[in-house]
């Protein structure tokens, strides 16, 4: 097990390096964008003198590497810096927006895993029969619809026509849990495509596992069908699905921009979009760090799960 431990440590270290690289890249790219926070703040009638003044006030006239170094030193003390646009600390942006994002993500995952796995197992159990065809046709069909289109469709039908659910989360602030009705449509839209890809993967893995000699052996020795499917065959289908699930959770946590924008949810995606529009480099960088860490940790977790369920495969650093 110590081999696995040192492997995980190396992966974390490598992940740290990756995060640093992401931050540097984001910084460089934001620098390369035309205009900066001063231009954005100057408003509709940019006056060069006013822009220069703002720039000086915000220390934007200093060389890029000095600003980066300052920010990095602050990061070492868990100080993400302050927003250029509002002067509020970046941490308050992130912690404020993390709540809605986390809420949406956990609700989605809590529904995604049972539904995706259940559909996959169901389709594999009746491979080639009408149940399988129905599941496959519906999942492929839904997968083909982009989420903004699906979202607009749902809003039109359930909010505007039928008036069952609120069309957006406008006016609820970050307290979404107090208004569960506002969460139904966003979660449905977030679920739509991941359910399809997850169930396709589980189905493929389950079909292989159910046709394997070891499942035939368990069946031969009188193990009940449901026990065979979920306890003996499913673990063999978990490894690829876990990787996919990690990517999905990563996507859910690191700014589901389209859905948040569509339903006006004040999550990380909204913060990111606004920060980019305002050239608010410290906020963008702070988000880059958070997203980088989340991605690294999730993928490490997925690899550990995959290692557990496909123990013969060598762990690769």
């Amino acid at each position, binding site marked *: 097990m110590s081999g696995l431990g040192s492997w995980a440590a190396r992966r974390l270290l490598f992940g740290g390096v990756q995060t640093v690289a992401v931050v540097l890249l984001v910084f460089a790219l934001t620098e390369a964008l035309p205009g900066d926070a001063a231009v954005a703040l100057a408003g509709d009638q940019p006056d060069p003198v006013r822009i220069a003044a703002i720039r000086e006030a915000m220390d934007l006239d200093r060389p890029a590497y000095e600003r980066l170094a300052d920010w990095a030193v602050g990061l070492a003390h868990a100080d993400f810096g302050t927003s250029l646009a509002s002067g509020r600390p970046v941490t308050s942006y992130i912690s404020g927006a993390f709540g809605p994002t986390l809420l949406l993500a956990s609700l989605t995952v809590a529904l995604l895993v049972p539904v995706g796995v259940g559909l996959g197992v169901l389709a594999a159990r009746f491979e080639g029969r009408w149940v399988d065809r129905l599941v496959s046709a519906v999942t492929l069909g839904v997968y083909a619809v982009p989420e903004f289109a699906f979202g607009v469709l749902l809003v039109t039908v359930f909010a505007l026509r039928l008036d069952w659910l609120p069309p957006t989360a406008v006016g609820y602030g970050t307290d979404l849990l107090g208004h569960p009705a506002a969460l139904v449509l966003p979660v449905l839209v977030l679920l739509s495509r991941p359910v399809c890809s997850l169930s396709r993967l589980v189905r493929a893995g389950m079909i292989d596992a159910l046709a394997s*000699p*070891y*499942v*035939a*052996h*368990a069946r*031969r*020795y*009188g*193990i*009940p069908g449901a*026990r065979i499917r979920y*306890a*003996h065959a499913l*673990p*063999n289908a*978990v*490894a690829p699905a876990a990787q996919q699930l990690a990517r999905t959770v990563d996507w859910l946590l690191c700014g589901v921009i389209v859905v948040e924008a569509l339903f006006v949810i004040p999550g990380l995606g909204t913060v990111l979009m606004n920060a980019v529009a305002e050239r608010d480099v410290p906020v963008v960088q702070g988000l880059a760090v958070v997203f980088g860490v989340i991605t690294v940790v999730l993928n490490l977790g997925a690899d550990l799960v995959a290692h557990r*369920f*496909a*123990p*013969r495969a060598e762990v690769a650093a």
Partner: protein
Amino acid sequence: MSGSSRSGGASGPSGPNGPAAVAVAVAEIEGLTVEVDGRRIVDGVSLRVLPGKVTALVGASGSGKTTTGRALLGEFPPGARVEGSVRVAEAWVGYVPQHPAAVLNPARRVGALLHDMARGQVRELPRSERRPAARSRVLAALEAVQLTDGGALLQRFPHQLSGGQQQRLVLAQALLLGARVVVADEPTTGQDALTKRRVVDELAAVAARGIGVVLLSHDLETVRALADEVLVMREGRVVESGPTERVWLTPTHPWTRQLLAVRAPLTEPVPRGPGPAAVLRVQGLRARHRPGVEVLRVPELAVHSGECVAVLGRSGSGKTTLARCLAGLHRTYEGEVLLDGVALPRSLRDRGRDRLAAVQYVFQDARASFDEHRPVLDQVARTAVRLRGVAAPDARAEAARTLDSLGLSGESAARVPARLSGGELQRAALARALLARPRVLVCDEITSGLDTVTRRGILDLLAGLLRDRDDLSLVLITHDLDTARLATRIAVLDGGEVVEQGPARDVLTAPAHPFTVSLVESSAGPAAESAKSAESAGWA
């Protein structure tokens, strides 16, 4: 699957060791006929399995013995039309496959299936007693197959067990099942002599517990050592049956005689003095798998022009690693592999065309070494195009000639691999390697998966190659003494060390190292005595 009946319980004796157990068959097949796509794979087979007895089905691959054995498990090929009856005394039948790893779930710990099986058996107990009762049943089953330290073993994954442990585990599953019949499908095929002996002992012990064992095998030594009754099968029919000794000593059917005759030692290869210089020389080779884990040490090994060197050892002795080092498939080693006195690059990728062509490799699993979608002939011809720059039509003509000389007709060669038998594919694999005009041909256990008749054919073919092609040297990687007899010199590997090396005649008749002695002994005297002694040693 119409017409098959598989009734449980009705005809079984009440107790496993009751007096009636001797007379009543624990499983019975009557007039079984299995047809797939209009072809009869099994044709009117009848068979009785008696408790405590070993019934062997013998025959070449494709003779229908596996289909018959599977019928006892209630399993038939997809789309099969079945006639006749299959009766099994008690519902469950144990199964020991050729490769035990195949029936062990790679993603679950070893104990998972055992616990699920045991849990089904203790359902009538009060809830609190179920878990300990199930566990004690599992541990008892493990103990019965001599898997000590069961508790720790149950926590492992199948890939963490040795081949022997895996096989015993599969037997333990059958015992835990309470099977009255165990079907063992080629349990010794492809195993070395010592492992075979162990498997024979284990199956004898299972029979000694009053379980009827059905042995499907083309390994005649094992059959002779174990079986009480033999049924000789050919093309789906039982051509001869009777007590083992009777069939062995006075076979009545010509096919039985032919099957038994191939056990006779083949004609000694014409001894030919080794050529003047070594074609291939290994110097100070130390191969590792992972950093720090040394798996093979060969200080010195030479292959002279026109000679055949056998590398003999049991599984895990490092013999395949040696072959892979020669062929450039294993790169992490120190020391040198010299071709005509010049060191070969460690990796295939660094070897030029000439050097690739000079050392060719024939794999154990011929089927896996072919692309399943292209005709065999095209794949064989490709070697000449790739490694010798021959034009495609000429290469095809040469491939067809070579295949023909190895006994594979143009009609078969034009098919895709799936439509050729294992023996035919091995011939095609040899032809593919020969088309490179190699100096050294490395054959890695190329006969171990084949039945006796096919194996003899391939060995004769190799002897013919040595005779006809002066410039060709063979390196035979094998665990089988019979195969090693083909060689002019033998190197014996054990635990990654060369423990003995010398002319074949000396090694085989006067082995010096204790390991070689045990190998020669266990192959010379069939393991009959050991099987009987296990029976009397009070296993039940």
